């Protein structure tokens, strides 16, 4: 069992030595992740874990990858994507150029889903999808666009539920248990590390998706990040959050108008 004070010590080390700042993450979840890893890697004591994190940069990578949560899927919450298709994309379709930011994109399933939507709306040729995450390992996977074939049945069902009418398998080639998604989709993607805690805005976007990332932050950090999104959105740009995330505790709430039932807001000015 790891104590609260030990977590503080570890977080201090991570910041001092590597510049990773996890101090404003949701404590209950973070503590559970660290305790889980501590058990998984069979450390005999907290001191051993601390030593390893401080001195072994290969282990540090594992540590960061394991305490952040990378779970994701294609067309996760199909009705959300349906709303993107039906309402959001048509309203930005007239723009000469469309910029989308996936903040906390994990292994990229969300980005490929978006590229498929854009392609089906005939907008992909004039779009650019910026996909960022703090974790370089997941970005490496995202770049490849290769997903396990065992999940594709679920993804294909999600796709259909999201209003997709094409043959989903036309978007990838299956090979040795894996599905490689079309290069045409990936061509419009830019992958880069970006830490929402410490990095600044880097462009202006028509649509920002940050789904199931804010749940790992405390309310102060959520508010800071939401302000970053506010600054990074074009006038009348859209912000999309995860199914159980909200603007209701944030200072920017009044600058946004919610869209029907899905977690999508539109910047007012």
């Amino acid at each position, binding site marked *: 069992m790891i104590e609260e004070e030990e977590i503080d010590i570890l977080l201090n080390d991570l910041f001092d030595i590597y510049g990773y700042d996890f101090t404003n993450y*949701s404590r*209950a*979840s973070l503590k559970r*992740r660290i305790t889980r890893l501590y058990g998984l890697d069979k450390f005999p004591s907290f001191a051993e874990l601390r030593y390893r994190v401080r001195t072994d940069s290969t282990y540090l990578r594992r540590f960061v990858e394991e305490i952040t949560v990378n779970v994701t899927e294609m067309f996760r919450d199909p009705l959300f994507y349906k709303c993107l298709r039906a309402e959001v994309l048509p309203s930005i379709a007239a723009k000469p150029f469309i910029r989308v930011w996936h903040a906390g994109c994990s292994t990229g399933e969300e980005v490929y889903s978006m590229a498929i939507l854009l392609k089906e709306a005939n907008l992909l040729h004039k779009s650019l999808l910026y996909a960022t995450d703090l974790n370089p390992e997941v970005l490496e996977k995202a770049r490849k666009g290769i997903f396990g074939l065992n999940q594709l049945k679920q993804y294909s069902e999600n796709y259909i539920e999201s209003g997709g009418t094409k043959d989903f398998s036309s978007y990838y080639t299956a090979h040795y248990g894996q599905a490689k998604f079309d290069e045409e989709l990936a061509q419009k993607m830019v992958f880069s590390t970006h830490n929402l805690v410490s990095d600044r805005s880097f462009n202006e976007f028509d649509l920002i998706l940050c789904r199931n990332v804010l*749940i790992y932050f405390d309310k102060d950090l959520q508010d800071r990040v939401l302000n970053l999104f506010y600054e990074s959105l074009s006038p009348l740009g859209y912000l999309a959050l*995860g199914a*159980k995330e909200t603007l209701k505790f944030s200072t920017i709430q009044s600058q946004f108008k919610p869209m029907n039932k899905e977690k999508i807001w539109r910047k007012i000015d």
Partner: protein
Amino acid sequence: MEENRLTPPCRAVVVGGSSGSIEVLLHLLPALAPRVPLVMIIVLHRKNSSDSTLLDILALKSALPLREVEDKDPIQPGNIYLAPADYHLLLEKQQLFSLDDSEKVNFSRPSLDVTFESAAEVYGPALVGILLSGANSDGTNGLTAIKKAGGVTVAQLPETAQAGYMPQYAILHTVVDHILDVAGLIRFLNSLE
């Protein structure tokens, strides 16, 4: 009972259930009339669909205000909270909820163990954990954590459960203070102080 007088006042109740537990809740929720404002948190294994039918059914029956948790919602006495589908539900020391979409635990998300363990950290001895009908072993580790923190553990009488495996598993593998049928559960909850 002598030992009951030693238990500190209860501030929160976590209820966990799987198959067969919704029926129990439909009896229990309308009959709730606790003497003190409690926090009640319900975690159920449910299909990972976004449909709100379950919430509607439970909210309709509940004597107290019942809603599904969103991230960082404050925890307020007098309310009943339902864990949303497809997220683990955690409690923060600042009296608010956090959600977490990490790996399933016991093939489940939400997992009863995760919420029970987290609630035990926040409420310590002022927590009651109740395990209802179900067909897997989720919840037992959670009850162990509650017991270890000084709280009170309860299981539905397995013979009265549609799926007796889950409460039975807890009774066999951890310390359960009270084993009750539905009427007993209602009496127990309404007499908490």
